[in-house]
């Protein structure tokens, strides 16, 4: 009885997507290790074991940790600013039909301009320090938040509003009971997209020019041909991005469940 059940549960275990995903990742790392050890130039590729060793060393190096922290607070500050201003502007634009019709086209026009083109201007105006990263990350993050807040306010079903009016609800009640619950899920969607965009903006400006952030070290390791350090730093940034994305995605799912 037991013996016949075990293979079935084992098979079910291996049929789970997470298991296969882990297996694929582990296989890729192993293949990389083998390829890096036996066939390629040491100056360019380092086996994962060397990368992990380098990652441990990087954590000990005060300068690198400081740079990571600098980048993190640049990201945090520009995201907070983007959320605050994005919410305020979004509510202002979406509050009434008139403001929506007159201001929203201007927001869309500004959103359509690719910000990478003006990256050097940010450095020209704000200097090579953290200020230009915060400003550039902010300029990336604010637009998705505005657009989603406006969408949340403008897509409240008209039938709900009409029935609330007919039952004699006042403005405050309508906001609390109808508009606000509709705003929350799209606000969280905006925050998720805004987080991705802010991260892109901060990293882009860090890599372009940096005096003490992560960009300084990526350039140092590229120019001094230390691939294991570059891999370790890149991997750390990638993990950070996945983690932050997961946090905002969870928050989004939690707050849009009522729909």
């Amino acid at each position, binding site marked *: 009885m037991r013996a016949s059940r075990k293979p079935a549960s084992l098979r079910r275990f291996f049929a789970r*997507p997470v298991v296969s995903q882990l297996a694929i990742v582990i296989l890729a790392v192993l293949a990389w290790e083998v390829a890096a050890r036996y066939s390629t130039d040491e100056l360019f590729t380092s086996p994962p074991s060397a990368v992990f060793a380098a990652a441990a060393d990087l954590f000990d190096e005060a300068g690198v940790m400081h740079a990571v922290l600098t980048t993190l607070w640049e990201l945090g500050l520009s995201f907070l600013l983007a959320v605050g201003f994005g919410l305020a502007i979004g509510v202002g634009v979406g509050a009434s039909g008139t403001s929506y019709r007159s201001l929203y*086209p201007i927001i869309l026009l500004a959103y359509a*301009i690719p910000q990478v*083109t003006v990256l050097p201007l940010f450095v020209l105006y704000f200097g090579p320090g953290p200020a230009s990263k915060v400003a550039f990350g902010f300029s990336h993050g604010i637009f998705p938040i505005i657009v989603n807040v406006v969408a949340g306010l403008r897509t409240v079903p008209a039938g709900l509003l009409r029935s609330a009016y007919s039952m004699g609800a006042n403005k405050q009640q309508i906001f609390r009971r109808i508009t606000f619950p509709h705003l929350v899920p799209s606000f969280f969607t905006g925050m998720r997209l805004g987080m991705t965009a802010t991260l892109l903006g901060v990293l882009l400006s860090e890599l372009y020019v940096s005096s003490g952030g992560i960009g300084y070290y990526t350039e140092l390791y590229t120019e001094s041909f230390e691939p294991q350090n570059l891999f370790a730093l890149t991997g750390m*940034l*990638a993990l950070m991005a996945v983690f932050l*994305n997961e946090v905002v995605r969870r928050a989004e799912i939690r707050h849009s469940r009522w729909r």
Partner: protein
Amino acid sequence: MRDSTVSRLIQAGFVAAVLLIWVLVTGTGLVNPIFVPHPVDVVKQLGRLIVDGSLWDDLKITLFELALAFTAAAVSGTLIGFAVSTSRWSTRVFEPLFAAFFAIPIIVFYPLTVLYFGLGPESKIVHGGMFGFFPIALNTISGFASVDRRLLQLADAMGASPKQRFVRILFPAALPIMITGYRMGFILTFLSIIGSESIASLAGLGHRIVWYAEALETPKMFAYIVIVVVLAMLLNAIVAALEVRRRGNS
């Protein structure tokens, strides 16, 4: 229809107001011309770039990189996305993996790309291709996954061959979603190529913007910014029009 005319008018008015403020602020010497050049200087530089041909070399390089990167992203994204979508198991395994990768700003890998492929066009093509691959692959997967099962059952019941099944049902049903993926991938590829040219490169439009910014020749820099913005809007309008047309046919 009327609403869109009104919003076009508002946009035109806004652009005119910005230009007017720009002229007033720079004409009266309120701001340093190194930070914000006079629009007339920018227009002069723009004319000079187009007339003396110095624009074309960089434009050609950027468009060449874009064409190769997008072709690579579209071909590999479509093939891999289709291969993944053929079974439920591989869809459930690979789609989250791709989505997780898509959440990483791929710009973090750019220093590694430069390390392997150098400062020339190769690193931009690889980088742009990586940026474009994920939306195309993800939309191909969801396009084929969203085909109405009843249509497939119907086709099977009427004895359709695998080829007919693909040509008549699977492909036409998946195409609209795939086209959205191509549009997203195309725009991301273009922007990432401009971005990577600004970070480390030898030529191209993004390179020129940074070059003149560092030389503090802001009129030329603004002229190149205008060119890239116009190019981006033009490319955007072309793909959007193509998307609408395909949607209309299918």
